[in-house]
């Protein structure tokens, strides 16, 4: 089994991607970058799904990945539309300034 990449490598990569996404989400000010960070988190999770599916020879994980991709696509469609609407309304995409709903 030497020719196979061990699963832990995939998981470490997956966790690294997820943490990058979280950090980007927390740190970045631009709404589009924040949005991309969310996609990065989703894909990090996707990677672990696929890795486990391969490990256990179970197709369920891959099906989940398709679901996640589908949700991500829908989210991108809606999210980008919202971002455009926000930009038109407020001429900025800095998340710090979009705080109309606080008390």
């Amino acid at each position, binding site marked *: 089994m030497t020719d196979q990449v061990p699963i832990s490598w995939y998981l470490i990569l997956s966790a690294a991607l997820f943490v990058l996404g*979280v950090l980007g989400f*927390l740190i970045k000010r631009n709404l589009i970058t924040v949005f991309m960070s969310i996609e990065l988190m989703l894909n990090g999770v996707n990677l672990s799904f696929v890795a486990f599916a391969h490990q256990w020879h179970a197709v369920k994980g891959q099906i989940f990945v398709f679901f996640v991709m589908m949700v991500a696509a829908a989210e991108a469609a809606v999210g980008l539309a919202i971002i455009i609407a926000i930009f038109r309304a407020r001429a900025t995409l800095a998340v*710090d300034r*979009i705080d*109309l709903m606080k008390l």
Partner: protein
Amino acid sequence: MNAPLHLWLIPLLPFAGFLINGLFGRRLPKALVTATALLAPLGAFAVVLRYTLFNWHSIWPCDTCRIYASYPWQVLPYSETFGSWLSVGTLHVDFTFVLDQLSLVMLLVVTGVGFLIHVYSVGYMADDKGYARYFSYLNLFLFFMTVLVLAGNALVMFVGWEGVGLASYLLIGFWFTKDSAANAGKKAFIVNRIGDFGFLIAMFMLLANFGTLTFSEIAAKLTANPAWTGAVLTCIALCLMLGAAGKSAQLPLYVWLPDAMEGPTPVSALIHAATMVTAGVYLVARLHFLFDRAPIALAVVAIVGAVTALFAATIALVQTDIKRVLAYSTISQLGYMFLGCGVAAYSAAIFHLMTHAFFKALLFLAAGSVIHGLGGEQDLRKMGGLRKKLPVTFWTMTMGVVAIAGIPPWAGFFSKDAILFAAFQQGTLGKALYFVGLVTAALTAFYMFRLWYLTFTGESRSADAHPHESPWSMLGPLVILAALSVCGGWIGISRFSAFLAPVTGAPVADAGSPITEWTLMGIAVLVAIEGWLIADKYYRRKPARPAQLAAAMPGPYNLLVHKYYVDEIYSALIVKPLLAISTYVLGWVVDRAILGGLAWLLGGVATFSGALLQRWQSGNLRSYAAWLAAGAAALLLFLFAPAIFGNYGISIAWKGW
């Protein structure tokens, strides 16, 4: 043979009138309001009259009098049950109405006199803004009063009992924008509450000792156990007496009745003279089997009655408000009824109740007619010389005055004589009470003729030079009641008590010799005429004498004018301390400090924590995300801590899983 009588019709007709006039009265034309208000009691009276005719032969036993012989014959007592009310454990209370001789008499008085007073009110209240409201209350009163009278057990009776109190409160405070009327209503309600407390305690004790509230079952249990006497029965009877004293304005709870004169005069006639205030007498007569077993309680009833009769009569001597004189006279006459009950002459008490309903309703209505004619003047000192101006009122009121004074053959003589005679038969105490009653009879004749002279004879002292006679809607009832005040007593006590005997038991066996009877009768008449002659001397022949007498004896005179200072004493002993406790202990300590402090504390905690948590909702997206991440990290730490730090510490919480 016992076809249903549909007893429910009697209360429900006035109730329907109450609903119609109470809900839609303001939008209906006045003629329709009047029609509803009059038809409801008239219908009830017609139903009662029908039952009376069914039972005519037992009132007037002769074969030819069986005019309704072809009708289904009703055997009294007749009871109707409309379903179960309470059924808890061994306690069963049904909605039961019972018609017997006693309730039949009461129903005749209540619906008959009630109807006449409704007719009178049409004239008296014609210009009042609350016309429909007035009649809806009046109908409501008749509903509760008939429930009270028909009740087959103490709880149904209590519903009527409280209900008439409510109607009385509403009608006393009918002109609620007037401060004194609103206060009088409250006073009546609160004083009655003390009496109701006694009634309630009596009901609890009845339940505890008899296990039932149904009158007939209590009577049956008492009959089955002839040895049952003693403290418990005395206690129950005394509690019932407290309730009766509250409702019937006896010492020491009479204080609300004079103030109740703030209500419209027909209300005073109906509720505070003829019907509601007699509920206490009715209660004692209804539960006489209990009182018969409790001689101490019976003696208390007699003494309270006699003392109240004398006490109220002395106050009535010097009152100057025409309605207040009548109010104190009502209290005094109610005292007579209690005296009758107390010497176990229940039929005599009910007889006096009936004749009193006639002549006192008449007196109040006639007084109302005088007040109406003078444009609202109630002060006797500003009346006088009205005989020619108000001829019908004058003649009808004369009938009432003579009837209450106890001069034969007017109605009051027969019933009062029956009570006095019964009292005389009852040993030493009875003889003492007989003399109290005799003195009261003289006082009664005096103050009633005083009222009569001051109102109708002499020169006019009125500022209003043109008093007018009342419309015939008011005079009609006066004439009918005057006729009843004359003839009401002719039925005779022996026939009356024979009729009531199935309910109140046979009249006192030792009827005394005819010589005693005639002697007592003669004394009573002489005393009444003496009272009249003194009044005649003081108020017609020598009108300066009363003022001289008052100046000669300022002490007793002031005592009477201020009604023995009873209101002041109650105020100082009960009302003021209660108010002080309410204001300082309950108001300041309990309400403001404890309850208010708690509310303030709770509100403060909520406001403070809200202000703190508000900072959290910054509206900054990244701070929310940071909290989310922190939460996720905490969860992860929680889950993996055992794997990392060993199976101790926080993992203990998970062992249960």
